[in-house]
């Protein structure tokens, strides 16, 4: 059974005035395996937050099916297994961090001494120790984000849904959050997070889904997507005369005493390497230059236009 399964999700809105229909989601299909980190990637307005709101029943899908652990998320019982951090979270500023976490626990019908220990542990885990009795109106954006993560973990969820969790965080906050997310995966949690910050995504995710204009354009294991996407090869060599090298491959550069040949991804690398060796040259390295997630993302964006 999948941790999260979305089949043919569509969502349209009508404008208030002319009742014109806007199709935001045009058929989203995705699957998230248990225990993986799934990166939901897309530019602003692609439909990431709308998809997440449909998962959490904050929006009713126009069509399609959403299952968490085999159960439709429209039932409150299915949401018992989910932890959610909204984008740019705003919490009740008249509460302290501790009061807010107790309130969040109560929403899961959790109460008693067990919750007291859990709240104390969560405050420590997200690095808010010493601030537990401070009113939230005095919290910085980074502290609110940490608290948001704590409330998302209060029910010890199987599936964690994080909407743009890195937005507004400083480099230290981002690193801490990355470490925390990776530690949650080690505990067997499934993490589904949306972002448009590619660097963070590339560092963490197992699988990625790229959403553009309300539909999933590409989905798969990040390692496979990148492995399939070799842009060109770089052959680094030395101990060979420039004239002989020009006979083998016209396109090369000289850097720090090494020759660097650039070969197209479909070029004959073996033949070039053999020719260099045959001419008494020394092969220092053969590097396949792969596409980054950013390259894949921008290629998809270009193709979709």
């Amino acid at each position, binding site marked *: 059974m999948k941790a999260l399964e979305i089949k043919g999700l569509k969502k349209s809105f009508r404008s208030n005035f002319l009742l014109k229909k806007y199709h935001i989601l045009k058929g989203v299909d995705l699957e998230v395996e248990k225990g993986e980190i799934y990166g939901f990637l897309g530019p602003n307005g692609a439909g990431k937050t709308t998809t997440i709101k449909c998962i959490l029943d*904050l929006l009713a899908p126009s069509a399609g099916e959403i299952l968490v652990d085999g159960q439709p998320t429209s039932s409150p019982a299915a949401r018992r297994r989910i932890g959610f951090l909204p984008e740019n979270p705003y919490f009740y500023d008249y509460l302290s961090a501790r009061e807010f976490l107790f309130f969040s626990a109560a929403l899961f019908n959790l109460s008693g001494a067990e919750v007291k220990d859990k709240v104390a542990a969560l405050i420590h885990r997200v690095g808010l120790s010493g601030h537990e009795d401070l009113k939230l109106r005095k919290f910085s954006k980074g502290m609110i984000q940490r608290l948001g993560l704590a409330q998302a973990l209060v029910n010890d969820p199987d599936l964690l849904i994080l909407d743009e969790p890195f937005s507004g965080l400083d480099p230290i906050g981002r690193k801490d959050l990355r470490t925390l997310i990776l530690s949650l995966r080690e505990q067997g949690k499934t993490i589904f997070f949306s972002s448009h910050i590619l660097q963070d995504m590339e560092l963490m995710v197992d699988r990625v889904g790229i959403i553009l204009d309300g539909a999933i354009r590409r989905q798969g294991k990040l390692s496979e997507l990148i492995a399939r996407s070799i842009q060109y090869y770089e052959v680094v060599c030395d101990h060979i005369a420039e004239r002989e090298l020009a006979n083998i491959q016209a396109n090369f550069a000289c850097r720090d005493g090494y020759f660097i040949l650039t070969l197209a991804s479909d070029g004959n690398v073996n033949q070039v390497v053999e020719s260099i060796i045959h001419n008494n040259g020394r092969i220092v390295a053969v590097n396949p230059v792969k596409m980054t997630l950013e390259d894949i993302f921008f290629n998809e964006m270009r193709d979709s236009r």
Partner: protein
Amino acid sequence: MKASVKGIVINTFRESARNKMFYLLVFFGILFALSSKVVSFLTLGDAMKVLKDTGLAAINFFCVLIAIFTGINLVFKEIEKKTVFNILSKPVSRDEFIVGKFLGLALTMLTALGAMSAIFFVFVALSGGGFDWGILLYFCMLGLELLVIVAISLLFSSFTTPILSFIFTVSLYLIGHVMWTFNEFKALLRVPAWKALIQVLYYLLPNLDKFNIKNEVVLGTALNPWTMLFSILYALAYIAALLALTVLIFRKREFQ
């Protein structure tokens, strides 16, 4: 009560109790109730009657003001500030959210009314008056009226802006206190369809005058227990109907 609903009740109560505006209105309510002493000095006749009359009117006015101002923002603010995402993304149904919000505000209102009433009783005693059961009954009926007003403002707050909610709630409050004019107006009409429409409106709109027993209390006239019982049942049924309607609207609500 489920822990989740209890959590929403306590949080709603906390929100009001930590709002400076709430304290300001409670303070003015008490201040105006106590200033009835000055009015009673300036008036000829039964000073105690004037004191009770103006004091009760002041408490009534400020309690209604608190109920409307707090109620119209209740759900709207949760949606506007997106704090509702945090609640409804958890295993909390929309029905539980509305019921929790209502009970939280009801608790707030009854606490404010209780505080004002207690101070008023002490004040009457210090002014030479004894404990009056009639006044206690008046406060109970005012409490019921406040719960109906809270339910009305909650209904509007669930689908429209605070300004429109304010206009609708105040309009219903004012109409609710002149419902007796509907019968007089109906008698003047000749077309049966119009008569029927007025009759329907008479039953649909809140008859808040049913909770007003101030004249009987101040003048010391007897209260009919059956009328009182009917008013209590009317309030409970009306609140239940309003909450059911609010829940129906809120179930369809989307949070973009």
